[in-house]
């Protein structure tokens, strides 16, 4: 059974292998992928997306390097650890507070973009520009098409 499916956007400007890396991480965060799950084989991915198989292998190597997955020779590539945080789960108190706050912001007349801008500026204060630097690195990682 295939657990995840990758969506490749050739116009995004983000390198294809990085799109796969980011989508696996997102699936790990959301709990769509859990330790022990098998990632689709390169052949399965390219048969669905028509991208170069080496791109898939490069993405899996990167995930392996980060300790998130492990190749088991002859069997495939398996998830090693999760990125899901219980603190950020659907029933967590932090999320409930944020939902509550969002309701108040809306009641105060802010629209979606106002809220997004406000959240972004508070995030920058709280986390420094770390998150932005990471996003920048992602853009810099856009080396060609592979």
């Amino acid at each position, binding site marked *: 059974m295939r657990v995840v499916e990758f969506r*490749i956007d*050739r116009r995004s400007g983000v390198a*294809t292998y990085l799109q796969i890396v980011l989508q696996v991480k997102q699936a790990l965060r959301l709990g769509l992928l859990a330790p022990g799950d098998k990632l689709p*084989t*390169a*052949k399965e991915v*390219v*048969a*669905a*997306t*028509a*991208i*170069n*198989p*080496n*791109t*898939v*292998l*490069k993405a*899996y*190597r990167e995930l*392996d390097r980060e300790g998130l997955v492990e*190749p088991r*020779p002859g069997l*495939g*590539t398996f998830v090693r650890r999760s990125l899901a945080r219980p603190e950020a789960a659907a029933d967590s108190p932090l999320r409930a507070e944020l939902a509550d706050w969002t309701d108040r912001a809306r009641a105060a007349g802010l629209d979606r973009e106002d809220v997004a801008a406000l959240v972004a500026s508070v995030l920058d204060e709280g986390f420094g520009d770390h998150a932005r630097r990471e996003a920048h690195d992602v853009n810099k990682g*856009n*080396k*060609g*098409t*592979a």
Partner: protein
Amino acid sequence: MTDLTFQPDRTALQAVGLGVKHRRGWALRDCSFRLPAGRICALVGPNGAGKSTLLSLAAGLRRPTTGSLTAFGAGPTDPAIRPRVAFVAQEKPLYPHFTVADTLRLGHELNPGVWDQAAAERLVRDGGLPFGARVGSLSGGQRTRVALALAFGKKPELLLLDEPMSDLDPLVRHQMMAALMAEAAERATTVVMASHVLAELDGVCDYLLLMADGQVRLAGEVEDLIAAHTLLLGRHEGPALPPELAGHTVVESRATGRQFSALVRTDGPVAGRWEATEPSLEELLLAHLRAPGAPALLTPSAEPRGAAKAAA
């Protein structure tokens, strides 16, 4: 499968001083390059660049006037090499009076011992083609599917495709490209794909051979070729190139009012205030096609190697 499919030390195709003379002049002149095995290589260039000539040489359908072309270390007409190479020509030559089933049978008879009937049938069946239909009654896209099925059935180590997807609608093109990539993933097939449609190659090909006027202009890993170039945007007036660019190779430059932009092969950092971005594959190709005078660039893996290293 954790190893990358390309095998950097095995050579799939190598040209040294390759030239082909037609009645009206040279179709290929002094071409030298190397294609490592397991790569999916885009063969790009304007009409008349020599792409089809190069593919027919690699398929062993014609012989060079000068120099040499080898596939897996031997001449493409070598009986030991022919079974390892498949070629789908632009016009997809098939027997129009044969049915689809007859055509696959032909593939079976002509490729004893290696023919993969299941792979060929799968491709035909995925397109919903009736096995009893005569090839002459099929649409262009359906004939392409049959031609690719013949090529896949041969289980080649080197697959040469001349404008393979040009007559396919977008859905079928995606299906065929996906089937091609899946085959390549399974068998580590080296693929050379001539195409005009640059968008078709982006994300699919990891190696590039750009030809113009019978000569190799760029050869190497797509990633490395892109990384070797920078798009510079800045302020500069006057007809001369900005002095800061001396010492770098300017492929193409444009001046619009005070704005100056250039695609440059940088040799170290560029002095001055420039906004530097990495070109896209399409920008890289278009700039080189517009600037035929720019010197050729081969990455190290695309430089021909001595005969000793050409593993059979």
